[in-house]
């Protein structure tokens, strides 16, 4: 069996996706039998030159994780596309922009000023900010420039397959290995644009019991709950769980641990915008029993308990949401 040439490139990432691959434990040996690494700078000694030196399309499968945040990320993504037959967007950042894309929110002030000068935890009396080029003793040092927005990989290059998750969980990576095995043996690949994860929502595979009618009084944080029912659905207990709108595939990793789903696998195929669907679902469940006695102000007060709707419902998917397209230049009045 001919080994598959694999390249794993990275952009704006925490490298958690690399760690997730190593988390395969003994299964990783199967990976080494199956593939020949052509590029994986996080785990082995590779430089970008090694990837550039390869012939076009020499890499069979190119995996990219992380968002597109700097000009360097754009460069790496374009090289990877040029050298690979298929490109896989791996992890929530490459799929939807992920947490880095939350910085695309419109701020009153410049992001650099905010991060390097005004954040309360920042001590920067000399106002040092990163520059794209600086001269020290006639030697010019350069850094990649930062882009205006952090975007998903698909915005820059053509992507063939998607593996969401933050990071993609072991069962998902095992699915990817199965795909690679079929590819190595028969040369067959799934249809282009396939998402290698579940097709239903998380509720379908979450083991918690769901009551027939879900209604809850207010939103609370998991640490505020006095006594949590370990088997009951989290929503009737008042904990925000994005399960009803999120793609299955993680086997309920968070909900098993009494933590509400945060939506890292993104929406299912049929949904355009993850957060809007979740807003629609979650607000229908609030105080269903007593709503008829409530006034507008009282209803408004319950909704107010979500201090940051954008951060809550778009934690991972803001970069690829409809609401991001609304992005306005208007001043909030």
């Amino acid at each position, binding site marked *: 069996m001919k080994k598959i040439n694999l390249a794993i490139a990275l952009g704006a990432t925490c490298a958690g996706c690399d760690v997730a691959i190593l988390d395969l434990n003994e299964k990783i040996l199967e990976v080494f039998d199956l593939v020949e690494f052509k590029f994986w700078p996080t785990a082995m000694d590779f430089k970008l030159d090694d990837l550039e030196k390869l012939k076009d399309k020499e890499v069979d499968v190119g995996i990219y994780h992380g968002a597109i945040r700097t000009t360097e990320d754009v460069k790496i993504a374009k090289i990877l596309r040029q050298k690979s037959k298929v490109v896989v967007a791996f992890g929530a950042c490459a799929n939807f922009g992920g947490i880095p894309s939350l910085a695309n929110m419109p701020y009153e*002030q410049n992001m650099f000023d905010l991060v390097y000068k005004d954040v309360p935890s920042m001590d920067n009396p000399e106002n040092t900010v990163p520059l794209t080029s600086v001269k020290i003793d006639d030697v010019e040092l350069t850094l990649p420039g930062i882009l205006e927005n952090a975007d998903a990989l698909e915005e820059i290059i053509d992507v063939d397959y998607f593996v969401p998750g933050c990071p993609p969980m072991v069962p998902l990576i095992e699915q990817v290995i199965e795909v690679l095995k079929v590819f190595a043996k028969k040369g067959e690949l799934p249809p282009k644009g396939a998402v290698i994860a579940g097709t239903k929502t998380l509720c379908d595979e979450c083991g918690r019991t769901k009551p027939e009618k879900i209604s809850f009084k207010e939103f609370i944080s998991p640490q505020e709950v006095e006594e949590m029912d370990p088997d009951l659905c989290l929503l009737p207990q008042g904990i925000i769980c994005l399960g009803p709108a999120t793609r299955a595939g993680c086997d309920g990793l968070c909900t098993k641990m009494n933590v509400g789903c945060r939506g890292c696998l993104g929406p299912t195929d049929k949904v355009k*915008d993850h*957060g809007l669907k979740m807003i629609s679902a979650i607000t229908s469940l609030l105080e269903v029993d007593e709503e*008829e006695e409530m006034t507008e102000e009282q209803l408004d007060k319950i909704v107010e308990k979500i201090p940051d*709707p954008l951060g809550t419902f778009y934690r991972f998917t803001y970069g690829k949401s*409809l609401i991001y*397209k*609304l*992005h306005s230049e208007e*001043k909030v009045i």
Partner: protein
Amino acid sequence: MSKTSQVTELNSNPNVVLFLCRWCSGKGADLAGTSRLHYPTNVLPIMVNCSSRIDPQHVVEAFLEGADGVLITGCHFGDCHYKTGNYKTFRRMSLLSRLLKQVGVNPKRFRITWISATEGSKFAKITTEMVEDLKKLPPYGKNGKGGES
């Protein structure tokens, strides 16, 4: 990233997508018509069975397709034909309006109000008010700077 807004010109002819529920607000709009009340022609009425049918996605897509404002109307609390539909609408849209604020959409562009079948004059007043408010703002969506598609 911060973007300095440059107001070039105001919107003399704003588009307002108006959602009406079939049982109260729709009848209210009819009454405004049969009573020969004047209201602006900038509103594009869309009738749905219940205001709770309106998904937040409909509102966002309306903005993306070129609406300068979205007005949602329904029955007064306690009057809903389906008993509790408008309570759900209110919570849903109240959370959506907070989200829209976060992405920088002017709150004047998105309103929710209750109009009963007998309130033809209120219908005329609210639509006029909304259009007048939007005339004081620059164009939005496809016509203006905000919104991409």
